[in-house]
């Protein structure tokens, strides 16, 4: 059949490349910002060495994994305030189990820790679904529960892990300029998140966060999507806790505390919409490095830590505001 004379509204008159740039503009900007920040770092500190890069990557690793954990839930329009507590649980669980283990044994224990934390995340999700209490309330309450669990496992800092296990994150690969911590981060996200995101379950997480009504009408099992998001959050919180163990070589029941809010800040900086459905994992990864780099630069410049916090917060507000203004201008067009 020929569509005789019907003026069907066709595709918008923008080219696809421009469309893709507009859609991924935030992520691109975040990477540009990261590049500029490295440039700045080399400018103020010409002696920035492979060792500095390694400690940067090591410091950013748990924060980046925590951001990935938070993002998984926020994609589905939820929020998890217990990420920090879950990281503590993972940290003390790993450190107390691995204290006398050899390397191969410790890898098995790491897998166990990841599985346990996935279940913990699933418990968060189940409580939210069954009780119908808002995510923010349930996960806030659960943050106290998980903090308590961490203290039950290890009442004070201690424990340990075999050096080969720590080297998984602290070492470097081939050249001193490629820190293991960066590789570990990329590999973790690539082998766990990428397959999920391109499968129906990943799509349904985004669909649920974007428009739950339309998602349900499209045949998405909204409950399953939300549960998967929380399970993923548990898994990556577990990974962040393991990363913390590798970094410090010990367990501390209070170690995770501040990761919750940093994770939320990181994903916002990374272009994830807190209302759900929008954003990706690439932005938050770069954002975690940006935040780590800013604080290390401030320390190098001798800025007192209290001012450092103020500056970090100001930069974050400015960046998010700039992003908001850009979005506003685009929608006004």
């Amino acid at each position: 059949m020929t569509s005789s004379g019907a003026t069907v509204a066709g595709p918008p008159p923008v080219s696809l490349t421009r469309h893709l740039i507009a859609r991924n503009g935030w992520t691109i900007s975040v990477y540009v910002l990261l590049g500029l920040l490295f440039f700045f770092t080399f400018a103020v500190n010409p002696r920035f060495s492979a060792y500095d890069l390694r400690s940067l990557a090591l410091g950013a690793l748990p924060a980046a994994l925590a951001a990935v954990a938070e993002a998984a839930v926020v994609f589905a329009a939820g929020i998890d305030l217990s990420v920090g507590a879950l990281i503590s649980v993972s940290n003390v669980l790993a450190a107390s189990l691995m204290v006398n283990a050899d390397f191969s044994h410790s890898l098995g224990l790491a897998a166990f820790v990841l599985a346990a934390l996935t279940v913990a995340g699933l418990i968060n999700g189940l409580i939210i679904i069954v009780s119908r209490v808002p995510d923010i309330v349930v996960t806030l309450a659960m943050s106290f529960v998980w903090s308590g669990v961490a203290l039950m496992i290890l009442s004070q800092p201690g424990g340990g892990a075999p050096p080969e296990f720590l080297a998984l994150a602290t070492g470097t690969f081939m050249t001193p300029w490629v820190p293991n911590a960066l590789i570990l981060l990329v590999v973790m996200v690539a082998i766990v998140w990428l397959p999920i995101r391109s499968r129906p379950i990943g799509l349904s997480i985004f669909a649920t966060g974007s428009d739950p009504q339309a998602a349900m009408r499209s045949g998405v099992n909204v409950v399953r999507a939300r549960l998967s998001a929380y399970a993923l959050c548990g898994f990556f919180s577990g990974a962040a806790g393991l990363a913390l163990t590798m970094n410090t070589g010990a367990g501390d029941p209070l170690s995770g505390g501040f990761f919750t809010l940093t994770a939320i800040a990181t994903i916002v900086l990374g272009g994830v919409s807190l209302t759900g459905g929008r954003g990706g994992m690439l932005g938050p990864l770069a954002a975690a490095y940006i935040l780590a780099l800013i604080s290390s630069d401030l320390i190098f410049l001798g800025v007192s830590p209290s001012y450092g916090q103020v500056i970090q917060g100001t930069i974050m507000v400015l960046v998010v505001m700039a992003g908001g203004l850009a979005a506003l201008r685009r929608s006004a067009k």
Partner: protein
Amino acid sequence: MTVSGATMSEPILEIRGLAKNYGPVVALRSADVMVRAGEQHGIMGANGAGKSTLVKILTGVVRPDAGTISVRGQVRAIRSPTEARRAGLATVYQESSLIPDLTLEQNFRLTRTPLPAVRRWLDELGLHGVDARIAARDLPLATLRVLDLARALAADPQILILDEMTAALPADLTETVFRMLGQWRESGRSLVFISHRLADISAICDGVTVLRDGATAGVVEPVRGREDQIVALMLGTVSRPVGAAVSSTEGPHEGSQAAVLEARGLRAGAALRDVSLEVRRGEVLGVAALEGQGQQELFDCLAGVRHPDGGEILVEGRVRSFRDPQDAIRQGVVLIPADRAQALLRLRSVQENVALPMVNRPSRWGLINVAREGRQVLQAIRRLEIDTRAQSEVRRMSGGNQQKVTIARWLASGFKTLLCFDPTRGIDIGTKRQIYGLVRELAASGAAVLIFTSELSEIQLVCDRVIVVFDGSVVGEMSAGVADEATLLRTAHGLAAERGSAFTGAVS
């Protein structure tokens, strides 16, 4: 368009005695629908007749309390949208069901719809070269509707359900869609077409099931030019009005008063195309419209909730632009919404709720004069006869009493124009009568009132004059004396307007 061919074939969808209650509210009592293979079947009904509940059940969003649905002679339980699709039903809803933040390709993958099939239907519908890597959010509404339709067709359903799908389509596109559906039926597929537009129904349907008060009132064959038959079925026996709350003798002061609130060529979004009206001092102007004809947008614009895309609003002869409801309130234009929850602080007391606009006046600083506030509030509460036994928390009061509280708040703080959007939705008859009486009283004391009610039979009880809105424009204006339910319903379906018939003439 011959019906003979269709009547020969077997029934493909049979709905029997479908019923659904929401608590004490009966949404559907006993709906029967029968659709044959290759048939294009319409479903019509006035507001609240049960159409939307029927669709929700057919699509697996809501489960019925009683009744059966058979597809090809087999009784099917439809417990989810996925099961509906498995039973051979695909639905295109009033709003797009594409996920805004996913690309088209991801959207089709989500519903496991093969892209080549979608493309084929898009070509048939005259939409070529859409890039599947674009996010649904970035496409215009009309394109999304065509994509929704193409996706539904690509699932290769036995029965396609279009729920008010043409409401957001431009006329030429509607024509294309109808032409294509005509071809589609040749393969023995059936269409269930739910619409407010009699013209569309009679253009493409072989039979129409008319729902009234949650039950099937009759099945008719729509013949162009005899749409009155369907309207008569929708009305049933002309119901007795709620009761003469107002003696019609205390009529309007026609022409004698200047317009307090005036709209000229108001436009907003796709729904509100062109509405002009004026409300005079001491007058109650009614707005009659079927669901989704732009009345919501009209009231939102007038109350400052939404900014109009075009046209102007005049208050006492001066052009005003409302940035937010506060601007409108400052000009004396106040809104009573249908949903009390939108207006009230449900956890606070009656006193606080009534006093809110007084306390919240932007020019006001300093301490709240509790004694004076209390006096004004009490006066308003007494005048409205609000049952204050449960006054500590508004949410514990009945719907009618809650609505009185929203009125009392404006009574206490003063206003010039009252906008009432379906103020008696879900309220019992006794309170309804009180509220209408009150509206009349307010008008008599000099207020201008604009009122929309979804119950056409009540227009005559409260209004002096009524305008009928169809498809975002005013299609009729009459004095309340002649605005009986049948007249309003005919006009509200666009029957009196010429554009309806011109439009159907183009499709054949």
